[in-house]
């Protein structure tokens, strides 16, 4: 299997590049950018479970991201250790995901989107206005990063490696999920929910479990984020944060493993690097998204694969295969 070998080789090269990145970048600023890309890639991968594989477009995931972050940050502020705070953050995000799911899975499509949007805004409202709990606009400071097995994560490089490990675990979990029977079940509920029900699947419960899975990894990215920033504010629960996550998924390519990661890289680089040179970076980001939607509506990763195949076929000058009947057409004689 040359395809499998090429894939393994690509994974090996990518892992090697990422593992040696602090050495060849040799600039704390860019190492931090790489950490940020991975933090948001985990967020986008988590969102992609629902958006790409479940066909459920959520605009409330920033709320889940914030619940994990705030829970951990507030517990640490109250004097609890990192382990307790992080586990509580994950527990909180699972409970919140279950509540989000029960309320929003009453609908699909635009109804689902509106309910998740409203739930996310409630979390933002609590973070912003319930100052007694969340300190409102002032946010919550996170005293420091944890030390794992005695290794402090305080330096940029150490934190980069810790994030890389979590990022790799997230990718592995997603890769397993996509190939698994449960992943196939979820995709089935996206494409033919009614048939899935008639085939014996519990469509609602499949979506619910997928929501918990998505929520869990959203919480993981929320925890990484507060440790990266050492600060959490209502900004992370904002609608803009949810929309950015969605843009990462859609621009990179939903229902692909690589797409959300590429999307995260685009958004983070535009926000941090390009904004240093272009004052209206938000507009530049918007233009990039419009171009992606026009020329590669399926997203950058699947779009590039398509162009690559076209170029490959063109270079070999082969007559193309007979066109496949693309649409389901009912033909009655």
């Amino acid at each position, binding site marked *: 299997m040359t395809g499998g070998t090429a894939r393994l080789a690509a994974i090996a090269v990518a892992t090697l590049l990422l593992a040696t990145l602090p050495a060849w970048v040799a600039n704390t600023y860019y190492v931090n950018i790489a950490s940020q890309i991975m933090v948001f890639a985990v967020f986008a991968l988590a969102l992609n479970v629902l958006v790409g594989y479940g066909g459920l477009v959520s605009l409330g995931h920033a709320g889940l991201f914030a619940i994990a972050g705030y829970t951990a940050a507030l517990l640490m502020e109250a004097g609890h250790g990192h382990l307790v705070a992080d586990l509580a953050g994950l527990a909180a995000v699972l409970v919140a995901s279950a509540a989000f799911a029960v309320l929003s899975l009453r609908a699909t499509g635009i109804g689902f989107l509106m309910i998740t949007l409203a739930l996310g805004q409630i979390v933002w409202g609590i973070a912003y206005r319930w100052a007694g709990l969340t300190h409102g606009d002032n946010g919550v400071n996170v005293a420091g990063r944890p030390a794992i097995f005695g290794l402090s994560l305080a330096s940029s490089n150490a934190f980069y490696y810790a994030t890389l490990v979590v990022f790799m675990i997230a990718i592995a979990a997603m890769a397993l999920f996509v190939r*698994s*029977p449960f992943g196939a079940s979820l995709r089935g509920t996206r494409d033919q929910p009614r*048939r899935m029900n008639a*085939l014996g*699947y519990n469509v609602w419960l499949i979506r619910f479990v997928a929501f918990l899975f998505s929520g869990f990894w959203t919480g993981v990215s929320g925890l990484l984020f507060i440790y990266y920033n050492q600060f959490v504010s209502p900004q992370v629960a904002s609608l803009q944060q949810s929309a950015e996550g969605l843009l990462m998924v859609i621009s990179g390519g939903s229902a692909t493993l690589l797409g959300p990661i590429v999307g995260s890289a685009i958004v983070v680089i535009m926000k941090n690097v390009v904004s240093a040179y272009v004052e209206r970076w938000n507009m530049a980001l918007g233009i990039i998204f419009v171009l992606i939607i026009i020329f590669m509506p399926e997203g950058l990763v699947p779009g590039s694969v398509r162009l690559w195949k076209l170029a490959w076929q063109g270079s070999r000058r082969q007559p193309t295969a007979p066109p496949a009947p693309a649409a389901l057409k009912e*033909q009655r004689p």
Partner: protein
Amino acid sequence: MTAPADATAHNAPPPALAVRGLTKSFGGLRVTKNVDLAVAPGERRLIIGPNGAGKTTLFNLITGEIALDSGAIIFNGADITRQPSRRRAHLGLARTYQIITLFARDTILRNVTLALLGLSDLRWNPFIALDRQRHLVDAARAALARVGLDHLADRPLAQTSYGERRRVEIAMALAQNPKVLLLDEPFAGLSLDERRDVQKLLMGIPRDVTIVMIEHDMDVALEFAERITLLHFGEVIVEGSRAEVVADPRTREVYLGH
């Protein structure tokens, strides 16, 4: 009702599928009116009726895809009226769709594998690779072999013909090894050759499967059916053996006469 007296005389076993007083309205439109139906185990039942007679709605009520207003559905002696659609599938009720309802982004093999996975506890497992579950994949290939599509198993569904998709529909239902199989116009849109293939395929289904079929094509359907139910405006107008229903003047008036 014109059920012949001898139908119950020879100590018949309880029906594989029975429907009692089934009623359904969409708004003010009564699409199913007090329908009674009893299909014996192993029977081949044909349901005919003009467009809008409520045939597909009857199937949707039996499978639970549409909630009924009143009545009861008995499956192998058990009342399944309140069971959700997915439970009925696990009990042994499978169907095909008149409007092809397949997973267009997947291969033929994956379509049939999904049908098998629906009845397997593996469907919740997020840790294993579905393609490596040999017993599921082999059973899916076997189901495709039954409908003569095993050589196309790895073809994406989007690259298949209409006739092939009809057969994938049937393969998915057969793969579930149902006790009762509901076929909604399995011959619709097929060429003459394809019709003959599908007919041969349906004739080959063993007698432990009870089959209820909706079909407009009288040539193939009449040959297949033992008993026929004629629906008209949601009501059972005529029911009986093939000869009785064909000879009945009401059949000619409603359906055959045009």
